[in-house]
């Protein structure tokens, strides 16, 4: 735990008084303190190119009244700095009259250990693995022309102080290991990448069988892409593999079910609560409570314990994801989904681990049922236009399907669809749900937060594939 007042001219008592005084006529608000330490070690082009260590400290002070949020943040935890912020909040909300909402649930559940992954291993141990990764890949295959590998680790300590002195704390570890490889054959270059991570120590990733698996997978994808043909263009059937392809769920429906867009009625889902938005058999949850997962949180960034929120149950829209502000304005409760990238940003309702649950069919049955279509196994990033509902994502490993059989690999293409209708096009849900390997970062309003996704294989009856072959 960080003691945020140790080297400051500001005592906890004085801070509590300023907080209570500033928030007394507001509906909600808090002082959020954060101390994070992070490192990144990068191997690229046969060398350790970067070893970077970052330490970040600061506070964000928020006052909420009605629909209005006043926010002020600073790196300096000092009497003067907090007073400047308090005055800034007061000047924005000078004519308000609210009743402070003291209710906040308590839970002692923790979904990760209180550790600092950076300090648990020496720099030399990490450098030595990265060098082994480089040697292993380059000796494994003559086509390998470039290898990039990196470790990144973080420990973030937060403290939330609410009006009246109520205090909530959390310490969050996060690590990630990534490998990217470029291969070249007969003048043609392609890449493949793979990574793993979670809220835990590096231990798991430093075991030889584990880092080798990551390397093998990156190289396999790169080699598949060397043989890829131009992708088809137009509407067709799409089979998605299990695990990471669930970023389709994240983009297509996840963002549209965040509370703020629905309160503001700018989401294509805002008037569909209780209605059928997906095929029968489709159930989607957003779960912050899975041990050691990248998207898991013991408490969210407002102090609310996280939970497993059912978003869509058997095709019916059941819940939106809420932070305290949007929950209050929509007369519901926070689902523990209030998140921020760091103290520089206001809280927004965000996803944690977004998962489509298993059905009964097998992936084989799906492939066999397709005359002409594609089988998408791995993806790069995705994006959505919340208002029109249109979303895209980019395949990094995909194959054509012809007459029920998997054919040649195809070049990376963008798939585009319509969020509110895509889940109605899901005609088979697989029995093979898988979590992603722990590498997702979701961007919204300029804020990146770690998230997870999961899904079984699914068959989508109609989607537009953005290839070049007509």
């Amino acid at each position, binding site marked *: 735990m960080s003691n945020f007042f140790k080297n400051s001219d500001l005592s906890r008592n004085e801070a509590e008084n300023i907080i209570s005084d500033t928030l007394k006529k507001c509906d909600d608000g808090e002082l959020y303190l954060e101390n994070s330490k992070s490192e990144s070690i990068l191997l690229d082009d046969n060398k*350790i190119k970067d070893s970077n260590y970052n330490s970040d400290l600061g506070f964000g002070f928020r006052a909420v009244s009605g629909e209005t949020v006043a926010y002020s943040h600073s790196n300096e935890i000092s009497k003067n700095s907090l007073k400047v912020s308090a005055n800034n909040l007061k000047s924005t909300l000078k004519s308000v009259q609210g009743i402070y909402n003291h209710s906040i649930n308590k839970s002692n559940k923790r979904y990760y250990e209180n550790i600092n992954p950076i300090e648990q291993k020496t720099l030399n141990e990490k450098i030595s693995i990265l060098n082994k990764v480089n040697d292993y890949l380059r000796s494994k295959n003559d086509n390998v022309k470039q290898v990039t590998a990196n470790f990144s680790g973080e420990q973030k300590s937060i403290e939330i102080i609410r009006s009246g002195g109520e205090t909530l704390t959390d310490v969050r570890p996060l690590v990630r290991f990534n490998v990217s490889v470029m291969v070249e054959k007969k003048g043609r270059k392609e890449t493949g990448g793979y990574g793993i991570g979670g809220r835990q120590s590096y231990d798991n990733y430093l075991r030889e069988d584990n880092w080798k698996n990551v390397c093998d997978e990156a190289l396999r994808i790169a080699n598949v892409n060397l043989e890829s043909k131009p992708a088809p263009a137009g509407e067709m059937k799409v089979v998605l593999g299990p695990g990471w392809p669930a970023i389709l769920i994240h983009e297509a429906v996840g963002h549209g079910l965040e509370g703020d867009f629905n309160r503001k009625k700018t989401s294509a889902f805002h008037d569909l609560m209780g209605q059928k938005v997906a095929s029968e058999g489709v159930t989607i949850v957003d779960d912050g409570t899975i041990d050691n997962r990248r998207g898991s949180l013991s408490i969210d960034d407002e102090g609310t314990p996280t939970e497993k929120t059912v978003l869509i149950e058997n095709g019916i829209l059941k819940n939106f994801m809420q932070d305290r502000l949007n929950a209050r304005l929509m007369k519901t409760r926070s689902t523990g989904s209030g998140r921020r990238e760091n103290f520089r940003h206001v809280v927004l309702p965000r996803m944690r681990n977004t998962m489509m649950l298993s059905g009964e069919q097998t992936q084989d049955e799906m492939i066999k049922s397709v005359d002409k279509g594609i089988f998408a196994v791995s993806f790069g990033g995705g994006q959505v236009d919340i208002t029109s509902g249109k979303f*895209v994502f980019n395949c990094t490993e995909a194959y054509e399907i012809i007459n029920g059989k998997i054919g040649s690999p195809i070049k990376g293409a963008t798939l585009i669809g319509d969020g509110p209708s895509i889940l109605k096009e899901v005609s088979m849900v697989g029995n093979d749900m898988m979590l992603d390997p722990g590498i997702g970062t979701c961007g919204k309003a300029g804020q990146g937060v770690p998230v997870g996704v999961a899904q079984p294989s699914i068959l989508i009856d109609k989607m537009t594939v*953005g290839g070049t072959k007509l």
Partner: protein
Amino acid sequence: MVKDQEYLEKKASYCIDLAKKLGASGVGVNVGSSISETVNFRNKKLDESNRSDNLGIDITTYIGKKKSSISSSNLLKDNLNILIEKCVETTKNTPEDEFNALPDKNLLAKEIKELNLYDESHIENEDKINYLSRLEVSASRDTKIVNTESSFTEDKSNFVLANSDGFCKGYKTSSFIASSVTVAKDDKSMERDYEYTLKCHLDDIKSAEELGKAAAEHTIRKLSPKKIGSEKIAIIFDKRIAKGMLSTFANAISSSSISRGTSFLKDKINQKIFSDSINIFDKPDIIKGLGSKSFDSEGVVTETLKLVDEGILKHYLVDTYNGKKLNLKSNGRCGGTSNLYFDNGKISYKDLLSANPKCLYITETIGHGSNIITGDYSVGATGFLVENGEFKYPINEITIAGNFKDMFKNITLANDLEFEYSTNSPTMMIEGMVVAGK
């Protein structure tokens, strides 16, 4: 107030001295301070105010050819002492890299150019609120507009870049940004679009009324879109999308992509990569330019470069490290381009629209579909069908795809270049791309 030059210089020299005392043979420091104040409106009401007070320091230490770096937002002496000690220790334990070095002393900037990048005017929140109120009235005039969000940000920054070879320079910059995002609805669809204005000087930003009106017009014309069939068709990129082609080009000619061999433009220097009529400049000394700078992020002086001359690639964007790898001198592009732009083409916007009997006019793309290794491009797109020079109806849920190597050779530019952003393009037509729709 942002921290003044003296405060930042003192911090920088403290770090350099301490790192040298602890055994560093070379040190680079960048220390910055910024204060930004934002007011957001939604549906004609105050939605959010945000004051942001930022400090930050980046320190890189060298011991011979070994290098490591730290960054922090905590500039208290105790913390800096711990971090610098950690940085020097890490440097000792990091393997050597023969190309690691501070920039060549002869290339460092000798002076700070007079670029007029700082406007000291302060606009009170009351005045921001007044601007946004007028903006939202203008944006919501049409009943089809069902939601308006707008924002006004004033930003003041100061920085000092210093190294152990005696370089120590920095300057203040400011920016004023206003934006308007509107949502329109009819019985068939709901659409969102935007307009924004960003300038170094307060007096140069667009009027509130103009901004709100433009956002609303962009949005309303997108209502009731259709999906078209898959075909090969000429595509016209609106300026706000066309500039993205330049950003991809800049990525592909960065010395880091070139030295790693991960660019489709590797080994293309002095070769023709665009059609004859294409000229591309990177000009760092435009007065009040959004990308203007006196030196790059290593302190190396930046001069104007004609990157592409009549279709031929003339320069990569070179920094010190990758320059040494490629046996090239840094041309002051560590951290990227400055004011990057395509020179004007020869035909008018109107003639470009009617150059083909049928074409697609793209106003927005989504997705990260640019692969600079292979040059493959595939993104989601929104726009309009244009027939015989006239806008017919809005289009969405399509993708556009091609390969940059071919696309670059098929670019035709209009003569309507304006300097609205740091990277700027006239309206652009590319023939021979594939649209995937129905």
